[in-house]
């Protein structure tokens, strides 16, 4: 067996070859090369083991959990209001679109779009990511005060929501949904536009429950309904 034949028959750099046998026993050059391959493999395994301690910080999980609860919370709301839904489009209510009904609740409370307060800047461009329907980011509590979601701001308090405590750890979750999701909450929406999507930011308390919401302009600056 030639050197070329040996390496062609031992894919992945000869990592599966047996030392001291066959061509490796006969060819010192290939034997040395094989030793180096083995050393590299061992080094990469050790590097892999050394990297195992690296993981995402806990705040990532907290933000994701908050986003998940927004959707789960909506599911529960939708379950109580399903009788409102006309039977012909009820099957089309997907779990994803339903997840943002909390946002729809906010939309119906909105009186119009106000300038975004500097204390809570937009999290990202509405379609910054390709597939996720929800984006979230932590917002320090001291950057979100009563004024940020009071009647004079673009954030609207969710009815019956718990008051935000001064030092409460808050999250802002951006949600994308369809207009149809609003119908589950009894919001009059033209069914012809049910597939249109809207974006909104939801302020979540430390318990993961929605406290306030605001509508995010679409890419063209338009809003859902006036």
């Amino acid at each position, binding site marked *: 067996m030639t050197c070329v034949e040996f390496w062609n028959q031992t894919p992945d750099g000869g990592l599966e070859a047996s030392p001291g046998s066959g061509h490796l026993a006969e060819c010192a050059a290939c034997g040395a090369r094989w030793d*180096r*391959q083995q050393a590299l493999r061992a080094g990469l395994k050790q590097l892999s083991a*050394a990297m195992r301690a690296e*993981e995402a910080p806990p705040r990532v999980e907290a933000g994701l959990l908050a986003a998940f609860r927004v959707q789960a919370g909506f599911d529960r709301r939708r379950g109580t209001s399903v009788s409102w839904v006309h039977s012909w489009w009820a099957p089309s209510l997907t779990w994803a679109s339903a997840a943002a009904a909390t946002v729809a609740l906010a939309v119906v409370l909105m009186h119009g779009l106000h300038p975004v307060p500097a204390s809570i800047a937009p999290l990202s461009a509405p379609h910054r990511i*390709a597939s996720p329907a929800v984006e979230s980011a932590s917002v320090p509590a001291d950057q979100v005060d009563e004024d940020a979601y009071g009647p004079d701001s673009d954030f609207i308090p969710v009815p019956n929501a718990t008051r935000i405590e001064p030092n409460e750890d808050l999250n802002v979750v951006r949600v994308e949904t369809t207009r149809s999701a609003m119908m589950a909450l009894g919001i009059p929406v033209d069914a012809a536009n049910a597939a249109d999507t809207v974006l909104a930011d939801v302020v979540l308390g430390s318990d993961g429950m929605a406290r306030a919401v605001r509508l995010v302009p679409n890419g063209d600056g338009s809003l859902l309904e006036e």
Partner: protein
Amino acid sequence: MAHDSTDTDDALLARLRSGDEAAFVTLYRRRQAAIYRFAMHMSGSATAAEDITQEVFLALLRRECGYDSERGTLSGYLFGIARKLVLRNLERGRADVAIESDPEDAAMPELAVVDDPLLDLTRRESIEALRRAVLALPRRYREVVLLCDLEELDYADAAVVLDCPIGTVRSRMHRARALLFEKLSQDRNPRLAVGRLKPMRVAI
């Protein structure tokens, strides 16, 4: 509802889509570290890695997330999303890792070295040198090493993640290892790097 470690990723995904928070947490904790590491070593930024990890798992909250168990594993799917986000991040110029020019057409490096640095690769400082060498690889080679060698994806899964034939994964791995040999050898023997320079005539 609690979930033990024997639940498959697909089973957890099905449950989280029905609103099972524990399933979401279990799945996240099982997969987040690998996604985070991949994103961090590809982007060179812990901040970007955080964002990417978050966005990857947010994708699972969307019903039409595009995952198809017939096409590959959920782990591979998550790595695929992470990779796309990393590439987008790199295109925006937010990467902190210096990406070297791609020596796709360069000659294969000579593997034989004067003072073989690979024989003691298990030593701590050598592991760190190996980490630096991996991070210095051109993107297309770095990603296969990260996926196949460090995160232990098989070539088939890596091919799905990279959206390329399995043969391409194999050839990139071969090339990546050769480049690692070269970089490690140069770190240990700077003279080898000098040998790569072309001689030129100068007036004295």
